[in-house]
């Protein structure tokens, strides 16, 4: 909402700087976005009088003007415009001036003759012919009688282009503030200044409106009130300068007196108005009804639009003439030969208007106001104001009376006056009479322990709403500040602590955290080679996505990580080592909320990384979670992974993690031109199995004995299997077994490998004897041999 300060001054006088005004209104609840002065860019442009004008001796289109610019001397200006005559008053951009485009004007020579400035057109002042309808577009602006013609006067003052415009951001609960009067009321209350409201008065005319117009409301649930009046002998003409100025300042383009009056009232009162040409109103009968099936209307903008049967229309006896509260039909507009018009001032159901506007894809100034739900009580006042303006502008003859169809007048909202409740709720101590005074300033009635909200305050329904009014005029910033009292006893839940642990571990392993979108493209499942019948393809799908790329909630974070790796690769980043604690969404069917589970997804590429780098991190994470007992086995059927370089980690037979090299076809799908590694850990199961309890174990008192054993085994024998067999066979004196060498080559034979372990034996209660160690080693060898291993000499 743009506010003209000049217009505002008609209702309330405030002496303050623009900056302070903006701050004061913002702090009392009407947020000022910005303010600007009209014509601020213009400099040194004044009213000049054309004393003489003659052709340029060396040009057939230039004119040499002698101008009195009020400076005391007559200056010479050359112009190429053809509409200037001796005696005209014109805008003169003097030497060293600035025009609307920001261009600087200086003295110069044109075809040999000096020109000490420039005569300006409207556009060079930043205006259009809408602002001065008597001016021409491509010529100098010749000042009319509605301008101050004192030479030397700043052009902005002379033509009324010096208003201050304040732009407000009005919240959706306050449609009453989408008006000059609404903002004036707030201003008056903010500054404690008197508010001078005006009661429109219509002089009596002749005839009776009822002989011209009949109104029926067939859809009272959508149209609460309809007021109509008739003006005959309409004299369509430009409206006067003061009206054009105010419209322009509020961002509305002046058209003609009748249209301008409707817009003027809308801006002044916040009530959209509409004017119909009575000629095209069949049967002189306005019927407010739902559109009929198959009906359409050609709106003022020339578009033919299909109407839905839930849309409210203003119709005559044959056809719709307007979409109620949205836009008029083509024949309803004001034309040059329009003779008799109907002014409409109505109140529609906000939701109905919003739906219709949305359904037609046309949000207008009118619909934007109606959809916030306007107040029906002022429809008649607004209509009277329009008629008053018609008489003031002599734009036609007002027919006596008004058709007012207001079946069920709105009940006023009455609340008990409870100043103590407000003081307690807000934390202030404002006496009852002061609270009452605040409320009265903004139009409330306070008497007999009751508050009656004004009809335009559609947002008031509860005591808390009253408290807000008190608080904002008391000043939010004057409310005392208090620290929360009571005992602070916040704790992290075990799961929150666990997540912290996971993330800390991942970071200490060199992985950086990522954050990716939770929605992905369903095509991502193809890109990671998920089988068509995979359960993971059953995802929560967005009905109205922004695009396919973000249309389903992910059931796996693998595509998210691959995309990040791919993006880093394509940006020539040499390496990436990343994790995300990602939420995945498992559908529970169409009518239930999905399960939202967490996955820890790890991903890396770069020349120093291989499968074992990532596996090491997975092992570190399991160990940080206190999970020592887990199985690792080759996983050959994970579709996104390399079948020979992928492992599945299981705890108690259930998968807890997958870790592997990304399948080359998948790498290609994501444009990753190098080997990459991904691990996915099921955080829900990890948390279930985690053992974070740590109990001190005494440090060993007796020495350990170590032995190295090397075996030759089949090349495809998993080392973990041998390790486990040895551990099982040697019993509890085996403190640790560690693989320290794997060798494949001629010395061990084809399809064989040599694996060497270091075994450390120790007892907690005595120094082990050689016999004990030898016996354990023997058992170890036997266990390995049972798996087909041969001890190396």
């Amino acid at each position: 909402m743009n506010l003209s300060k000049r217009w505002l001054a008609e209702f309330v006088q405030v002496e303050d700087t623009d900056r302070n005004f903006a701050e004061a209104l913002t702090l009392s609840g009407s947020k000022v976005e910005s303010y600007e002065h009209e014509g601020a860019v213009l400099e040194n442009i004044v009213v000049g009088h054309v004393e003489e004008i003659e052709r340029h001796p060396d040009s057939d289109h230039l004119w040499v003007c002698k101008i009195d610019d009020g400076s005391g001397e007559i200056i010479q200006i050359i112009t190429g415009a053809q509409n200037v005559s001796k005696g005209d008053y014109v805008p003169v951009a003097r030497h060293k001036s600035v025009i609307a485009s920001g261009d600087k004007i200086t003295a110069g020579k044109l075809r040999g003759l000096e020109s000490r400035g420039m005569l300006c057109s409207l556009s060079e002042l930043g205006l259009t012919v809408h602002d001065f309808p008597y001016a021409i577009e491509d010529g100098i602006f010749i000042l009319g009688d509605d301008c101050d013609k004192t030479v030397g006067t700043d052009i902005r003052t002379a033509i009324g282009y010096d208003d201050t415009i304040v732009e407000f951001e009005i919240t959706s609960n306050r449609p009453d503030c989408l008006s000059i009067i609404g903002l004036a009321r707030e201003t008056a209350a903010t500054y404690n200044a008197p508010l001078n409201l005006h009661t429109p008065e219509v002089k009596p005319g002749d005839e009776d409106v009822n002989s011209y117009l009949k109104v029926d409301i067939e859809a009272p649930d959508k149209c609460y009130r309809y007021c109509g009046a008739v003006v005959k002998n309409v004299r369509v003409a430009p409206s006067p300068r003061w009206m054009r100025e105010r419209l322009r300042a509020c961002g509305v383009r002046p058209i003609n007196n009748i249209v301008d009056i409707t817009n003027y009232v809308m801006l002044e009162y916040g009530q959209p108005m509409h004017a119909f040409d009575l000629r095209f109103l069949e049967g002189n009968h306005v019927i407010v009804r739902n559109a009929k099936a198959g009906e359409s209307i050609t709106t003022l903008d020339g578009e033919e639009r299909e109407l839905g049967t839930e849309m409210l229309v203003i119709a005559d006896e044959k056809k719709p003439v307007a979409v109620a509260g949205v836009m008029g039909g083509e024949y309803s507009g004001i034309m040059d030969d329009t003779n008799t018009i109907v002014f409409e001032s109505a109140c529609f159901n906000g939701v109905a208007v919003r739906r219709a506007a949305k359904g037609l894809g046309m949000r207008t100034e009118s619909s934007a106001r109606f959809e916030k739900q306007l107040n029906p009580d002022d429809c008649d006042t607004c209509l009277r104001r329009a008629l008053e303006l018609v008489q003031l502008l002599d734009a036609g003859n007002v027919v006596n009376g008004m058709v007012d169809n207001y079946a069920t007048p709105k009940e006023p909202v009455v609340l008990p006056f409870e100043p103590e409740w407000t003081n307690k709720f807000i934390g202030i101590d404002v006496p009852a009479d002061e609270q009452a005074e605040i409320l009265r300033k903004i139009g409330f009635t306070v008497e007999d322990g009751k508050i009656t909200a004004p009809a335009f305050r559609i947002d008031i329904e509860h005591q808390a709403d009253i408290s807000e009014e008190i608080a904002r005029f008391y000043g939010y910033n004057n409310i005392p500040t208090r620290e929360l009292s009571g005992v602070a006893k916040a704790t992290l839940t075990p799961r929150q602590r666990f997540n912290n642990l996971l993330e800390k571990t991942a970071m200490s392993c060199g992985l950086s955290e990522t954050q990716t979108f939770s929605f992905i493209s369903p095509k991502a499942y193809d890109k990671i080679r998920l089988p068509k019948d995979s359960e993971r393809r059953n995802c929560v799908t967005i009905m109205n996505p922004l695009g396919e790329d973000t249309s389903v909630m992910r059931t796996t974070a693998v595509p998210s990580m691959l995309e990040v790796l791919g993006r880093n690769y394509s940006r020539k980043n040499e390496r990436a080592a990343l994790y995300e604690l990602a939420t995945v969404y498992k559908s529970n069917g169409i009518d239930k909320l999905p399960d939202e589970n967490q996955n820890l997804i790890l991903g890396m590429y770069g020349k120093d990384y291989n499968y074992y780098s990532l596996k090491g991190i997975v092992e570190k994470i399991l160990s940080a979670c206190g999970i020592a007992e887990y199985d690792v086995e080759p996983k050959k059927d994970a579709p996104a992974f390399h079948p020979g370089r992928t492992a599945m980690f299981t705890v108690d037979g259930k998968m807890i993690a997958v870790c592997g090299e990304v399948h080359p076809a998948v790498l290609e799908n994501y444009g990753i031109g190098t080997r990459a590694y991904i691990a996915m850990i099921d955080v829900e199961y990890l948390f279930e199995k985690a053992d974070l309890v740590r109990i001190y174990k005494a440090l060993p008192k007796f020495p350990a004995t170590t032995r190295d054993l090397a075996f030759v085994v089949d090349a495809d024998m998993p080392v973990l299997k041998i390790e486990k067999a040895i551990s099982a066979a040697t019993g509890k004196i085996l403190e640790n077994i560690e693989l320290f060498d794997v060798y494949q080559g001629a010395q061990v034979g084809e399809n064989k490998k040599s694996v060497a372990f270091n075994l450390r034996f120790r007892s907690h209660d005595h120094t082990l004897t050689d016999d004990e160690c030898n016996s354990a080693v023997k058992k170890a060898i036997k266990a390995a041999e049972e798996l087909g291993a041969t001890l190396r000499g």
Partner: protein
Amino acid sequence: MRQQLEEIRKNAEAALGEVSSLEELDAIRVKYLGKKGELTAVLKQMGGLSPEERPVVGQIANEVREYIQSEVDNKAAQLKSAAMDAQLLNETIDVTLPGEECEVGHRHPLSIVLDEVKEIFQGMGFDIISGPEVELDYYNFEALNIPKDHPARDTQDTFYITDNILLRTQTSPCQIRAMEERKPPLRVISPGRVYRSDAVDATHSPLFHQIEGLVVDEGITMSDLKGTLDTLAKKLYGPETKTRFRPHHFPFTEPSCEVDVSCFKCGGVGCSMCKGEGWVEILGAGMVHPKVLKNGGIDPEKYSGFAFGLGLERLVMFRFGLDDMRMLYENDVRFLEQF
């Protein structure tokens, strides 16, 4: 014998003066003080002395021994220290060569600031809770006093899964869930992802993060709201930070406000960051609407409360001077490693 002893002392002194290695020093020690050393040899002759001379000579002999021993010890210490100095000199390296890289992961900037906010609120006794991102219409709108046909419910703003299930557009549904699950006194924050139908650009994203806060207790007033959020602002941006509370409108709070902090770049004078205003908006808040309390199963006659919502991305962008929100979700390692 006295002369002999004096001779030994002199010889030893001379020998020690020339010694240059620990080996030589040891040889000297053996030569003079060893079991077969010269001093021992002289002492063995003591038997031939008269009883009067014996203690006198014995004392001299002891003095000589002590003297030599202490000189040997001193010399040993000197030699060891010289040897160490030589070794250290020999081991000198170019300490300006680059250190070996030690890979540590980086926390995402969103998490860095979120951790900070969580810590601030935990310090004030707020528990951290979370709620579902795929949410029922009831919790996201209905219960928050956003009726059917409210513009916020438009499909152009909200992602719907079914007519009744949607991607939450705010973390505020956690207010209702918290009230349903807990009894007052209640102090919680609920950070999380929210979704709105905005195309991606430098300042918009269809997915972003909010931090919701809720306090419900007997006698909670707007003063408590102001105190809590003032503390937040000061902890986030420094003790000099001022806050400004502006009336605003949210359907689920009444009175509602927006909270500005004095610009942390210019201190309130006005700069490009605050668009010359001196204030930067950081959050929305208000007293919980009595209808909302009721919807959460809490008696509005007995309890009151306040709620607030912060946009995490905005805080992150302020904190790190980031001007393009997209960077947060691209996860370019060159970006991530800056934090």
